[in-house]
């Protein structure tokens, strides 16, 4: 007969320290902060009347436009600095993302692709293809190029590194788009806030696709058309979001001056980022688990 002794002072179990910043957790915090801030502005304007509906001052609009950047500095960047093994070069990627958006993506969109001139008359699939194959692929190719020619492959140790870096570049894109909206004198504070949240959520959500495909190319053994497939997928996701956003905002009946409903556009953007985060978290977790089962480790050393 055997028995296990019961210790009066059991040994303290040593918890393994996770050496990297937890990307999903900090990104979710940023998203919730932005969502709550935008919801607060909307409620204060439309329910309590505390903010005038015609408020067009540039300062509050700039503040809401820069809120995603502030949230990133508070949650992601600070957590990265505190992590035992921080990811380097994040600020540089953020600046490069902003420069590429302002110097290449926006001029191409406004002067060459001009989606507002020809897409509104198209059907759903025409919009998906039209927007995805012009604005969508260009945006995601620029993000790819920044990641590819700065830190890839040496800074990609695990699949989540791809997500972390791609989210940073996407935030640079989103901030520039947001500032452009904020400086538009015709936009009210509420409209700017809703637009800022929509743009930020869609850029972050679709940016994850590019990061995942780049990380998988570094770590796994994908086929030679892997990145091309990722680029087209990300581009078409932009197109799908653009098409559904049009439907979400202008569909429905209303008794006001217009029947448009920008808050449905916000809900769609939030749904997009939540769905993409969930899907790619699952894909990354299952790929990492498979790799751990085969090789005994989850990262490239």
């Amino acid at each position, binding site marked *: 007969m055997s028995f296990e002794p019961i210790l009066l002072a059991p040994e303290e179990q040593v918890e393994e320290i996770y050496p990297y910043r937890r990307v999903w957790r900090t990104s979710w915090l940023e998203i919730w902060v932005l969502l709550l801030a935008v919801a607060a502005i909307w409620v204060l304007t439309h329910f309590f009347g505390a903010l005038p509906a015609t408020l067009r001052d540039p300062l509050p609009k700039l503040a809401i436009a820069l809120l995603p950047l502030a949230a990133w500095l508070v949650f992601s960047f600070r957590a990265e600095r505190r992590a035992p093994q921080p990811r380097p070069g994040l600020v540089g990627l953020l600046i490069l993302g902003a420069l590429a958006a302002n110097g290449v993506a926006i001029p191409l969109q406004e002067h060459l*692709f001009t989606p507002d001139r020809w897409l509104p008359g198209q059907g759903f699939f025409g919009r998906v293809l039209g927007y995805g194959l*012009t604005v969508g692929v260009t945006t995601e190719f620029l993000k790819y190029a920044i990641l*590819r020619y700065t830190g890839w492959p040496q800074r990609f140790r695990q699949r989540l590194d791809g997500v972390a870096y791609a989210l940073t570049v996407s935030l640079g894109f989103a901030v520039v788009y947001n500032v452009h909206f904020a400086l538009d004198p015709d936009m009210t504070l509420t409209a700017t806030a809703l637009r800022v949240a929509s743009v930020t959520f869609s850029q972050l959500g679709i940016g994850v696709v590019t990061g995942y495909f780049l990380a998988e190319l570094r770590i796994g053994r994908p086929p030679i058309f892997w990145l091309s497939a990722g680029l087209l997928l990300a581009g078409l996701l932009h197109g799908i979001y653009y098409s559904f956003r049009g439907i979400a905002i202008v569909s429905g009946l209303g008794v006001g001056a217009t029947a448009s409903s920008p808050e449905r556009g916000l809900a769609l953007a939030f749904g997009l980022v939540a769905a993409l985060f969930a899907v790619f978290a699952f894909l990354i977790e299952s790929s990492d688990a498979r790799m751990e089962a085969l090789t005994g480790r989850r990262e490239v050393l």
Partner: protein
Amino acid sequence: MSEVIWTNEGPPLTFRQRWNGYLIIGALALALLLGLTLRSNTLNATQTLENLEAGIRAQIPQGWLVDSGGADYVFRAEDPDALPFKTLLQVSILPVGPDATPGNILYLIDMQRPNTLPAYRFISRSQITLRDGSPAIRRTYAYTQDERNPALESLPIVVEGVDVIVLRRSQAVIVTYREERSAFDDNYYRFENLLRTLEIF
């Protein structure tokens, strides 16, 4: 805990990684080619408009609203999606005497326009040659248009217009393009397309 030392030198690229890098550029080029072709086809898609009674056939942009029941024009096509001014293409025919010159027609138009177009201003006049070699007069002008709905409280918009006048036997054909001033140059190609495809028979 071990410290990670970052270097700028990455590991050498594998065959798959190299070819992924090449193919993504090809995929971008292909996607842009398709996207820009789709854009071009959409913006330049046309439909044929024919009026056998007036002897006019022309290509106008697809999806535009066409009105061919006016007393002073053969047809008028407007872009229903354009804001704040519905871009307009119009073809009119005026019966003229055998001694009429394009200058006479211009004088007649200049007499009538200020009565119908607010703040009408003549801008320029030039001689041009159409594709088939026939001489014509090109005249530009501007006027203001007020929003008809007073509840919108909008400012008047400035509209720029151009007429091309050409004499055909005992008729003067007037081809007109009008657009809000800031979008005038961007959509001018539509007017050129109309002129290029206009047949008078």
